[in-house]
């Protein structure tokens, strides 16, 4: 544990170093490399904790923090699991950062000044995970928000970044405020803000529910739960890509950690309707997130919305866990929580992979607009292959890892009919349907993304002039892609990492099937559902080999190239005739977007004879903005205008105000007396 503490300290020191020597190219490389090393050490230690159950002293104390409460860092299986997830992403992002071209399509210079914040951001996230009191937790939490906010601002010269960063930090502050209040209520019994003391305080159901609501707001806003997700699709894309990868892949997981830590660990026995709320929110989040993702033109926004979707999936798992646990169904709670945590790990891996892949694309093309890309599979084969793996994984398709966690989530949902309370029982199939819809739409969204960006023909010179990126960038995406496959094929290996944690929080470990064949993932001991990645991989590889051999031995092996069918055009109609991202999304937009997002297509077609170009435009409105945030901001604005009158009164008015205050206060005091 002290080694983890030292590694975090090293990250902080690196921040200082980078602050001093941020301009120097060598220093940049060194800082990223050292960050990767520090993160790797922490990840290794966390892993060994999960495997061995101990890494020496579990708690270390430092002479900083509040005078009467020195900072204590501690580790348990929950921390360890999330430490592993977070630092896995951190290593990948750091390695990627070594080679990441400064000119990454953001057109910004002076990113070197923002470099110090990278290790600080990593440190902030790690502090949250090992904090064992509310102060340290919130310190790390805010530090994480703050440093990532500045990292977002590293692209401050771009249009929209400023607004994104502003909304981000204010929402983060809002979330922190909710968490602060929650911790305050948890500690209210004796004012002791250590987690150990909070665990010991029994809460009334009402108080526990208030704390639960606050945590849902606090952690949910950080994770990107609808309707508190609005900052996420703005802020995540605005940062440099490896930071986006961290924010989307990893920082949202820290928020999930906060949710689990407080609701499952500190609050105590949940009530069934908490599960219901979380479940329904998760379902809505998943579907809204993926629908928005489907309609984005900006690559990174698309990925950010997809993060919202995946957070929804994780939340569904957590909601089911709460519901099962409230009913004392421990085995099912274990299943649902395993699903959620498995997806935490998976999403961290494939979302990092995808964002880093987009970083490669940005480096190569300097573009974020999908409509300007195409055909990159020819220019950047390794990135394209890794990105394809990521797309399959995030679409929840076998044999990649995304399928495994979604499979587990579905298994948990299918068992939801055993719940006692009828509102949850009805909610479960509906949420299940939402999840199914979300997963299928995600596949559509990633077909669209991959198809438009990597396949087809280049839609602009940016894309046609692209070249493959540097080694460290390729290496990090390739390793992550490999991880996606390995976890998808050997899911049971990950279960052993999760099971100590499940035992700690649910009381029983996940019962991996024993009577069934080797490495099969099962939902229950006595059968239920099953999935075996190894068998699948072996079969697919064997069949592929056989098939290719057969086809090539007995069929015609020749092939030639030609121009494709142009619908009657004899000349090549060119890349503009390709389906675009917008046209791909059009059916979904018509079916779902018209009602949910007021999506409208506007076509301005010139009359025959006119020489101007036709204009096609899509307008969309986010209902969350329309119903929640715009009115809120509007009312604050109106209030501000009203109160602003106070600024420019005359001296006599101010004196009158003083007189009135005096009179009122005297009246109040008289009333009190």
């Amino acid at each position: 544990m002290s080694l983890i503490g030292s590694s975090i300290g090293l990250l902080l020191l690196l921040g200082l170093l980078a602050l001093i020597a941020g301009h120097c190219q060598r220093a940049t490389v060194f800082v990223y490399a050292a960050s990767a090393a520090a993160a790797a050490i922490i990840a290794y230690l966390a892993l060994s904790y999960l495997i061995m159950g101990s890494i020496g002293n579990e708690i270390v104390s430092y002479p900083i923090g509040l005078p009467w409460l020195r900072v204590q860092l501690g580790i348990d299986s929950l921390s360890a699991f999330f430490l592993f997830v977070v630092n896995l992403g951190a290593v990948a992002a750091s390695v990627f950062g070594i080679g990441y071209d400064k000119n990454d399509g953001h057109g910004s210079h002076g990113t070197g000044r923002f470099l110090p914040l990278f290790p600080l951001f990593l440190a902030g996230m790690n502090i949250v995970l090992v904090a064992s009191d509310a102060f340290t937790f919130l310190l790390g939490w805010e530090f994480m928000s703050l440093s990532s906010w500045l990292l977002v601002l590293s692209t401050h010269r771009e249009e929209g970044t400023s607004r994104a960063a502003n909304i981000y930090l204010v929402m983060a502050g809002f979330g922190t405020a909710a968490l602060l209040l929650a911790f305050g209520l948890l500690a209210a019994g004796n004012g002791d803000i250590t987690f150990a003391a909070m665990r010991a305080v029994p809460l009334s159901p009402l108080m526990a529910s208030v704390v639960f609501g606050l945590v849902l707001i606090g952690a949910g806003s950080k994770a990107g739960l609808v309707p508190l997700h609005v900052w996420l699709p703005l802020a995540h894309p605005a940062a440099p890509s490896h930071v986006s990868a961290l924010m989307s892949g990893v920082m949202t997981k820290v928020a999930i950690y906060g949710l689990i830590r407080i609701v499952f660990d500190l609050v105590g026995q949940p009530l069934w309707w908490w599960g219901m709320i979380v479940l329904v929110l998760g379902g809505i989040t998943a579907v809204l997130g993926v629908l928005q993702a489907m309609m984005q033109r900006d690559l990174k926004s698309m990925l950010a919305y997809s993060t919202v979707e995946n957070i929804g999936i994780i939340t569904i798992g957590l909601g089911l866990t709460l519901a099962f646990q409230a009913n004392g169904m421990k085995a099912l709670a274990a299943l649902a929580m395993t699903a959620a945590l498995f997806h935490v790990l998976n999403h961290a891996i494939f979302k990092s992979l995808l964002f880093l892949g987009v970083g490669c694309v940005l480096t190569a093309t300097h573009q974020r607009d999908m409509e300007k890309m195409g055909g990159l599979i020819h220019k950047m084969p390794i990135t394209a292959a890794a990105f394809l793996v990521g797309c399959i994984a995030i679409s929840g398709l076998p044999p990649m890892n995304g399928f495994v966690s979604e499979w587990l989530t579905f298994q948990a949902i299918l068992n939801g009919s055993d719940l006692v309370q009828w509102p949850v029982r009805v909610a479960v199939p509906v949420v299940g349907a939402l999840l199914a819809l979300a997963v299928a739409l995600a596949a559509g969204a990633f077909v669209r993304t991959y198809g438009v960006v990597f396949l087809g023909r280049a839609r602009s010179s940016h894309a046609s002039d692209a070249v493959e990126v540097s080694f460290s960038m390729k290496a990090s995406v390739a390793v992550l892609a490999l991880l996606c496959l390995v976890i998808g094929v050997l899911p049971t290996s990950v279960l052993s990492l999760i099971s100590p944690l499940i035992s700690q929080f649910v009381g029983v470990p996940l019962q991996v099937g024993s009577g069934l064949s080797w490495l099969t993932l099962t939902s229950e001991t006595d059968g239920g559902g099953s999935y075996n990645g190894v068998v699948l991989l072996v079969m697919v590889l064997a069949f592929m080999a056989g098939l290719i051999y057969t086809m090539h031995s007995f069929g015609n092996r020749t092939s030639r190239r030609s121009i494709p069918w142009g619908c009657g055009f004899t000349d090549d109609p060119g890349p503009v005739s390709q389906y675009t991202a917008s046209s791909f999304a059009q059916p979904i937009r018509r079916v779902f977007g018209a009602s949910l997002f007021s999506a409208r297509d506007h076509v301005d077609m010139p009359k025959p004879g006119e020489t101007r170009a036709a204009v096609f435009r899509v307008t969309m409105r986010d209902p969350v903005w329309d119903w929640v945030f715009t009115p809120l901001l509007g009312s604050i604005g109106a209030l501000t205008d009203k109160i602003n009158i106070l600024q420019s009164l005359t001296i006599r008015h101010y004196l009158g105000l003083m007189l009135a205050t005096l009179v009122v206060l005297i009246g109040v005091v008289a009333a009190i007396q």
Partner: protein
Amino acid sequence: MTSGISYDVAHLLGAVVLLISFALLVEQRVIALISTFAAQGVVLSLAALWEGWSHNIHHLYLSAAIIFTVKAMIIPMTLNFLVGAMKVHHHETDPGLGVGGALAIGISLVVLSIVSIFPIAPAVTVLTKESLALAFSVLLHGMLMMVTRRNAISQLIGFMSIENGLLMAAIGVQGMPLAVEVSIAFTVLVAAFIFGIFIFGIRDRVETLDIHQLDLYRGERH
């Protein structure tokens, strides 16, 4: 019976100070305001004198002297000088609230001060309570005057009327140390001094004594 007489006289003087403060509230002509203020100073110094004599507190004589010199003589003279120097017209008025409004609000302030002061202190003598209530009323009237008047000189008089209220309270409470009066006198002197500077400053820049004109320069009005 001395206590009875002493009470009556103190009572009377206090009431007169309050009455004059009413007069200050309703008086509209600037020149007349200065004279009224001087009268208040005179009555106040008399009150201090009486208090000192009846309770045999010697430093109150000194207080009375200071009050008389400063409030009844130096300041009114200075103000008259200012008025002359700045060629303020003798009929220049500063209507404030108007008689009805000033009286209505003034009386309600008196009620407020009595309501707030009287119940608090069963232990304190009636006279102390009463003089405190009167002093508080004078103080509130001073504030009211500052709120309603626009002319720099009437504002200044309102300000000093507040100081008078304070003096009255200090006199009314037994044994308030001399330091207080001296400090008040000191403050008032400096106040007048600074005000004078500002008034000239304002006049140099703004060509008026109307405080209202200054409001044009208050920050960020739009």
